[in-house]
């Protein structure tokens, strides 16, 4: 997890485009200026960043489904629950599945586990648009390579 770059996913460990599911791993860094303020003497991973981690995981799933033809942007967070404190140094397993694929939007359900226990979950709406800038698409492809996004999910389906 590179908090300073807002890159909250370390690795995509499973992406199933047929089942429309994804699983990612992320390790919270042991130190960050964020934890100096949130909170002094009691460092916690901010809940909004846990929601962002679920949104990014959902986003990679959608990018896999659309083969890099659409960029997902977080549009709505529903029923977000932050069920336990999450601390620096902890390892997260983040999962997401598609609930609904609409025209120009996708709804997912995502969750984060620490040591097998759900610490956060939410239903998310992501708005899908063509990549507004080729540099964004190129940048996302670089990130994809860095997080082991499966190359097969980047290519258009045969036929």
């Amino acid at each position: 997890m590179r908090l300073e770059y807002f890159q909250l996913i370390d690795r995509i460990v499973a992406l199933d485009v047929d089942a429309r599911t994804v699983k990612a791993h992320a390790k919270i860094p042991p130190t960050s200026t964020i934890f100096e303020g949130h909170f002094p003497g009691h460092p916690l991973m901010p809940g909004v960043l846990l929601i962002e981690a679920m949104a990014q995981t959902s986003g990679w799933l959608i990018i896999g489904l659309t083969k890099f033809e659409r960029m997902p942007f977080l549009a709505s967070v529903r029923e977000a629950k932050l069920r336990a404190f999450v601390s620096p140094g902890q390892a997260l397993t983040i999962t997401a599945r598609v609930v609904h694929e609409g025209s120009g939007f996708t709804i997912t359900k995502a969750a984060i586990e620490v040591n097998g226990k759900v610490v956060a979950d939410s239903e998310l709406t992501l708005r899908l648009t063509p990549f507004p800038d080729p540099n964004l698409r190129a940048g996302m492809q670089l990130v994809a390579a860095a997080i082991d996004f499966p190359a097969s999910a980047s290519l258009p389906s045969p036929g």
Partner: protein
Amino acid sequence: MSSTFDTVATIIAETCDIPRDTIKPESHAINDLGIDSLDFLDIAFAIDKAFGIKLPLEQWTQEVNDGKATTEQYFVLDNLCARIDGLVAAKGA
């Protein structure tokens, strides 16, 4: 069995917290009811689920942006319901 309009009006009322009795067949979802594009995604989700269809919002938006259609054709509720009925019929064909 409720009509398409009744179902859509109930979805709009519940999704956007708009009094049901202010939602009329001639209401324009955007201009009259003040529904923005994000709220309309929630409405589209509920309509997709309720009718087992996929409202082609991207296509409609493109047609409006290209000047090939007006928002009234898609977002006046009478017209929206007619399009929903058409999509349902096409699904069953």
